C-alpha cells in the first residue's frame, strides 16, 4: 500500500501550544484528481476528512470511519484504499483519485453500467463501490463472478445492490469496455 511508505513522521511540526496538544498543522502537497494541492493539515486529519471538508469533494462518503465499510474508497497512486484509514500527511507527494476524478466528459463505462443495471439504491455506498469496481477491471479486465465478489468483499451496501453491482461489472467486462 503506497500510503504505508509515506514519510509522514518528518512532516509533523511542533504545535503552537507545545507538547500538550501535539504537533500542529503540517504542509503537504498532493495531487487530487489531476490538480496539485498545497494544504496545511493536522496530523490527526484523515484523507477522507480532507477530501470532504477542505476540498469539498463530498462524493467520498464516510459511514463507519474505521475501515469497516469501504464507503470512503479512493485511489492512492491508482490503488483503492479506505480514505478514512489514511492520514492526510501520509499522502504527501502522492496522487489521489476520488469519484469526482473518475469521469471526464462522458461517464466511465462502469458508472454507465451501474445506471443501466440499477446498481444503485440509496447510493451512499455507490461512489466507493464504483472506485473498487473500476480498479478491479483495470487490473483484471475479465473477472469471474467470484473475483468481482471478492473485490467488493470489503464494501457494505445496506440496501443490497450487490446482485446488480456484480451484473454491471460483468457486463462491462463482457463488452470489453475499459477506461475511456
Amino acid at each position, binding site marked *: 500500500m503506497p500510503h504505508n511508505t509515506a514519510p509522514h513522521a518528518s512532516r509533523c511540526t511542533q504545535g503552537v501550544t507545545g507538547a500538550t496538544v501535539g504537533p500542529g498543522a503540517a504542509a503537504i502537497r498532493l495531487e487530487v484528481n489531476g490538480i496539485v494541492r498545497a494544504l496545511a493539515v493536522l496530523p490527526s486529519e484523515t484523507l477522507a476528512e480532507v477530501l*470532504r471538508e477542505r476540498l469539498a*469533494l*463530498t*462524493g*467520498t*462518503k*464516510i*459511514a*463507519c*470511519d*474505521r475501515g*469497516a*465499510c469501504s*464507503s470512503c474508497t479512493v485511489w492512492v497512486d491508482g490503488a483503492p484504499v479506505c480514505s478514512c484509514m489514511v492520514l492526510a500527511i501520509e499522502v504527501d507527494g502522492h496522487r489521489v483519485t*476520488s*469519484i*469526482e476524478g*473518475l*469521469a471526464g466528459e462522458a*461517464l466511465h463505462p462502469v*458508472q454507465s453500467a*451501474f*445506471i*443501466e*443495471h*440499477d446498481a*444503485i*439504491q*440509496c*447510493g*451512499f*455506498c*455507490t*461512489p466507493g463501490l*464504483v472506485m473498487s469496481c473500476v480498479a478491479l477491471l483495470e487490473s483484471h479486465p475479465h473477472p469471474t463472478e467470484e473475483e*468481482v*465478489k*471478492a473485490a*467488493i*468483499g*470489503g*464494501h*457494505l*451496501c*445496506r*440496501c*443490497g*445492490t*450487490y*446482485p*446488480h*453491482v*456484480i451484473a454491471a461489472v460483468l457486463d462491462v467486462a463482457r463488452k470489453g469496455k475499459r477506461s475511456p
Partner: protein
Amino acid sequence: MSAGTRTQLQPVGIAGVSLGQAERPVGAEEAPALAPNAQLSCIGRSAPRINGHAKVTGSATYTVDVTLPGMLHARILRSPHPHARILSLDTGAAEREPGVRAVHVIEHPIGRAIEIAGPGEAGPARRQLRYVGDPIAAVAAVTAHAAQAALERIRIEYQPLPFVIDIEAARQSDAPPVFDRPVRTEVFGGPAAQLPQHGNVHGPDTSASRGDAAAALSAAEILIEGEFHTQVQTHCCLEPHALLADWRDEGLTVYMSTQFTAGIRAELATALGLPLSRVRVVVDAMGGGFGSKSRIGNDVLAAVALSRKAHAPVRLVLDRHEEQIDSGNRPATVQHIRAGARRDGTLTAVAIEAYGTAGVALGAGVGNFAQSIYDCPNFSLAQSDVFIHAGPGCAMRAPGNVPGAFAYEQIIDELAERLALDPLELRERIDSSPVRREERRIGAERFRWSRRLAPGGGQGALKRGLGMAQSHWPALVHTNCACEVRILRDGSVEVRSSVQDIGTGVGTVLAQVVAEELGLSPGDIVVRIGDTDFPAGPPSYGSRTTASLTPPARNAACLALRKLIAAIAPTLGTTPEGLTLRNGRISSSDGLHSIGFREAAGRLRTEQIGAVASRCDDYGGFGHRMGDFAFARNGLGGVQFAEVTVDTETGRVRVERVLAVHDCGRPINPRQIESQVHGGILQGISYALFEQRILDAPTGHMLNPNLEQYRILRSRETPAIEVHVLENYQGTSATDAYGIAEPSIIATAPAIANAVYNAIGVRVRTLPMTPAVILEALGRLPHRS
C-alpha cells in the same frame, strides 16, 4: 375531490392469468382508467433512475454533504451507565471552552415510552438515564472536535442504579424496574387504550384475538407447538442520522436525512409551537432509513435548540457507535405458538403468546402476520412489551411481521410434515389468496421444487435443503398526500411533492407516471421532491409511498393537461371538449385541429399552468383507516423459495439461491422493484444468519457497536437471486400501484429456516442461525453419530 362520481371500467386480474375488467365508482376528477402495462409506453418499463448520474459521480447531495455559512458542529453527551440518576450536572466549564457557542441539556427525552405522571405530580425531579447512550446534553462549537472536547468538560455526578438487560430476567417481579410509573400505551406512535403494566411487563395486548382459541385447541385433531426466539437487529443505514438546523426569526429550516419530510415538519411545529408555515424540512439524496429516520428524535430537538441559542446553523451527524446504540433497532421477540388443525389441514385454532423488548420503548409486537395470512376462525394473540435498560427500538422494515413470519411459517411447515403434505399443498388448502396461489405455482416451477428431498435426506457432511415461505403485508395508503404538476411555457414539465427518495427511486416513478399522461418520456419531466415547500407527500415507510403518491401525480398531470387544453383551445379556433392528447399532439376528434404539446404550451398567456391533486380513497373504499393512513382492502403477498447448504461439521449455513415471486399491484418500474426485492432478501438473509446486537451482561454496553463485529451480509454471502413480479390489477386507484419494500423481507428468514430444516432434519427456532445455533440443533438429533 369533487362531489360527482362516475363509474369506469378498470383492468382487474393478474396479467397473463386472469386479466379482465371490472366497473369501479370513481370521483369526477379522476383520470380515465389506465390500460394494462403492455399497452403503455412509460409505466411498466425500467426507466433509468433519474438521480443515477448524480449518485454514480458523487455529486448527489446527502444531508451529510450540506454546509451553510457560519455553520456550527454539535456532539451529544451520552450516558455511560445503563441505569443511573443524575445527581448534579454542571455545564459551566463546557460553555467556557474555546470555540463553544451553545450547550443544551436534554431534560425531557423523547423517542421512548413516556411515563404517566401521577395526580399532582410534575414528573420526576431528576433525570433518570435508562440505557447506555441515553442522551444527556449537546454542545455546538466551531468544529466537531471542539464540541467533542467540550462534552468532556460537562461535570456530572451519577448515581448508578441496578439495571436489567436480559429479557427473561426483566420479566421477573424482582427485576429492577425500567420505569417507576405506568407508561402511556401507544400504537403506531399514537395513543391507544391503556394496557396493564406489572414491573417491566407492559401488556398483554389481546385486541387481535377472535373466536375461542382455547376451546378449539383442546378439541383439535392435530396440535403443533413451538417456541421461537428472535434477536435485536440494528438498521445500519449507511448514511448516519444527520441534520443541519437553521433557526431564524422568520422560521426554521431543517436539512435532514429523513423518511418523511412532511411528518418531521408537523412534529417540529408541534414540539416548538411554530405554525407549519414557518417550518421547512429539506432532503435531497438520502442514504437509507429502513424505518429509523421516520420521526424526530432527541438529536433533532437538540440541534434545533442549539441553533436557536447560538443564532447559527447547527450540524449534527451521529457517528457509527451512536448509530448502533441509539438510533433504533428491530426488537427481540419470544413467541410461543400452538396451532390446532383438522386432519385435512384446515386450521381450527391458533394461540400465540409473545413478548419482546424494544429496550426503553414500546413496539416489540409480532405484527399482523399470523392473524391475517391464513383463514382460522379461532385466534388468540397475547403480546407484551418487556422493558430493559437498552436503547429504544423503532420500526424496521416490516416491523412485527418479520419475526412473526419467521415463527409462523415454520409452524405451518411443521403442520404440513405432520400431515405428510407438501408445504405447498398445505398452503393450497389454507391460503385463500388467489395471488399467492399463482405465486406459488410460478415459484415452484422455476425453482424446481419437485427435486426437494425428505428432511435430512442428503448424504455427506454438507447437506442441501430447499424451503419456502410466504409473505403478507397490509397495502397501506397515506391519505394526507398531494402532488403538483406544472406545465411551463416552453413545454417543460415539473412534478412537485415533499416526498423524499430514501433510495427506492420514487422520483423516477413520478416522472414515469407524469410522462405517460402527457405523452412525454420520463427524462422530459423535472422532478422536484424532498422539500416541504412542495405539496405534502407521503412518508417513505410502510411500503406506502408509490401507492399514495402515484395516483395524485397522475391525476394532477391529467388536470394540468385539461387546463392547458382549455387555455389554448381558443387559439385553435375551437372549444376544449373535442381536444385530446394523442401521440404527443393535442388534436380534435374530427382531425381539423392539431398542435404539438410543446407548441401548445408556447401559447399559454402565463409562464406556467398547473394543478395539485390529492390522494382520494381507493375506488370502492378502504378496508379501514386510522387518521392519515388507510389499509387497502387487499394486502400484499409474495412467496420466496430458498436453497441452502448446511455444513454439519462447522454449523455454517450458506444460502445458495433465492427465488422470489411478488405482487405490488401495477408494477411501475420493474428494475427498481427488483432492486428493492434484492434488498429485502439480502437484509432477510443477514437477519437470518448474521446480525445480532450483543449487550455485555456486567456493564450493559453494546459489544459490537460498529460495522465489523456487528456482522452484516456482504457480497461473498450474496446468493443467486431470481425475482418475478406479477402484474396484479385491482382497479383501486388512478395507477393501481402498491409497495414492495416490506413484503420482500418477510418471507426470507422463514424460507431459509424451512430450508435448513429440510437439509438437516432438525428445527432451528432461534435467530440468528449462527454455526453455534446450528451445531446445538444438530446435537438434538438422536441418531447423530
